[in-house]
């Protein structure tokens, strides 16, 4: 009896070990396969189209003759929208994080943290829809534009999507600053603001940078909401109040009409590789800052 029980345990042990191993291997395999697929499809473009014209071409006309797959307008579209969003989200996010971590009374702090997480839980398509019916007309009115579907509208809306990430990571970073720094600064006669500005922010700087990088990562990868309100004109933007089209929106909008295996199809995967490289770089930088903190 006892002997049998032992054998049963051994079998369970053996099976569980294999199952867990398999689960681990499968997730790694998926990542590798996706990456290989992305590379294979994307790089196929360069059999017929020069990488130089792809990376530095100034126009994206996939259905002209001959087609033009210059990624620069899309890249700039993404950059303008992302930069705009970051310029709005970072100061607001930093302010909110400082307020939550250092200034707000305890009861309000809990409420605010809850609300920030609530903001993170709103599906991006819903934010996009709300943006389309409220923000877009406002931008059109205020700037007297022919259309409110502009990079600016996209930037404002994306700022709200990036805020929860920025605020909650930054708030963690500020809370993690040792109490002794605060005591030291206060004992030297620093006011609360001087303490925050001269001690807390430098002490939490790597966490703050990580928060900003992850916020950028969130913004640059966003697709549907941006597609809804940036106007989708694939041309080089000269002002933030013009319609633009981002890299992500291009893939989403054109994938349905591109013939599988065509040059256009491969070009969209090429954009995918470019996006992948950008997000990878951003996440890598963020984790570099997070590690440096420890």
């Amino acid at each position, binding site marked *: 009896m006892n002997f049998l029980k032992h054998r049963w345990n051994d079998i369970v042990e053996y099976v569980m070990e294999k199952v867990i191993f398999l689960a681990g291997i499968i997730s790694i395999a998926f990542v590798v396969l996706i990456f290989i697929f992305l590379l294979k499809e994307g790089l196929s473009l360069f059999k017929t189209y020069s990488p130089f014209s792809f990376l530095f071409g100034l126009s994206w006309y996939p259905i002209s003759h001959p087609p033009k797959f210059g990624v620069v307008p899309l890249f700039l579209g993404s950059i303008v929208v992302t930069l705009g969003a970051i310029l709005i989200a970072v100061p607001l996010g930093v302010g909110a994080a400082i307020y939550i971590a250092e200034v707000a009374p305890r009861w309000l702090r809990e409420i605010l943290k809850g609300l920030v997480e609530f903001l993170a839980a709103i599906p991006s398509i819903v934010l996009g829809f709300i943006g389309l019916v409220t923000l877009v007309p406002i931008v059109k009115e205020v700037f007297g534009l022919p259309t409110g579907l502009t990079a600016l509208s996209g930037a404002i809306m994306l700022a709200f999507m990036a805020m929860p990430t920025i605020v909650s990571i930054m708030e963690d970073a500020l809370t993690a600053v*040792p109490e*002794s*720094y*605060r*005591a*030291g*600064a*206060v*004992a*030297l*006669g*620093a*006011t609360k603001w*001087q303490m925050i500005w*001269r*001690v807390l922010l*430098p*002490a939490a700087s790597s966490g703050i940078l990580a928060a900003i990088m992850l916020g950028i990562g969130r913004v640059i990868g966003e697709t549907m909401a941006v597609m809804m309100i940036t106007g989708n004109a694939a041309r080089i933007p000269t002002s933030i109040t013009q319609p633009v089209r981002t890299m992500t929106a291009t893939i989403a909008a054109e994938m349905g009409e591109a013939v599988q295996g065509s040059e256009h199809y491969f070009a969209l995967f090429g954009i995918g590789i470019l996006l992948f490289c950008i997000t990878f770089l951003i996440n890598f930088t963020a984790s570099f800052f997070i590690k440096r903190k420890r």
Partner: protein
Amino acid sequence: MSERTIIRINHFNLFYDQFHALKDICLEIPEKQVTAMIGPSGCGKSTLLRSINRMNDLIDTVRITGQILVDDQPIYDKGLNLVSFRKKVGMVFQRPNPFPLSVYENVAFGPRLHMKLTKKELHGRVQQSLEDVDLWSDLKDSLDISALDLSGEQQQRLCIARLLAVSPEVLLMDEPCSALDPNATQRVEELIRDLKNDYTIVIVTHNMAQAARVSDQTAYFYLGEVVEIGPTEKIFTTPSKKETEDYITGRFG
């Protein structure tokens, strides 16, 4: 040696919520001397030290009655300018707490808050402060390194230099050597004896030998009360209270 009283504590009571942590403390601290506060853990000595710098203001639940006067100025008055008051009364903490900035920026921190100095004046002040704590010769070529890369002893010296840079009158030290090894402790004690020539020092310590070595006056605390206060020599040789003697001879505490 001057005998002017710089800190006067009058019937001072402090409560954490319901807990009566300091009971009717009356103490006088003479200028340019070292006053040691000893007693078992939880006896209120650190709480009193923090009260002299109003650091207990950071805690919401603290309530006080009575008054503490520094240079005859009541520090718990509403009209007190906390910023310039804390410039006058500086605090060294149990664990060295340099800011995560460069050595130079740590020392320059206080002057930048309180004084409008030219670059040259600031540099002179930083150098003078570091010289006063015997760090200048070791660190003059590495003022840019992070203060967190210094040894524990250097960090604690730096924290003292950081105070000296704003020309305080009183230095409050909360077990300044408890995170240091014996050799470093000995050197910091020497520094405390040197500093006494220019500053009034109040030191809280668990180490009775340290109190005996560095202080001129010693106060023995027990359960939130001052049991006995007097010249250090007298407290350690012929204490007038039985409780003090028990504590000092190690029968208790």
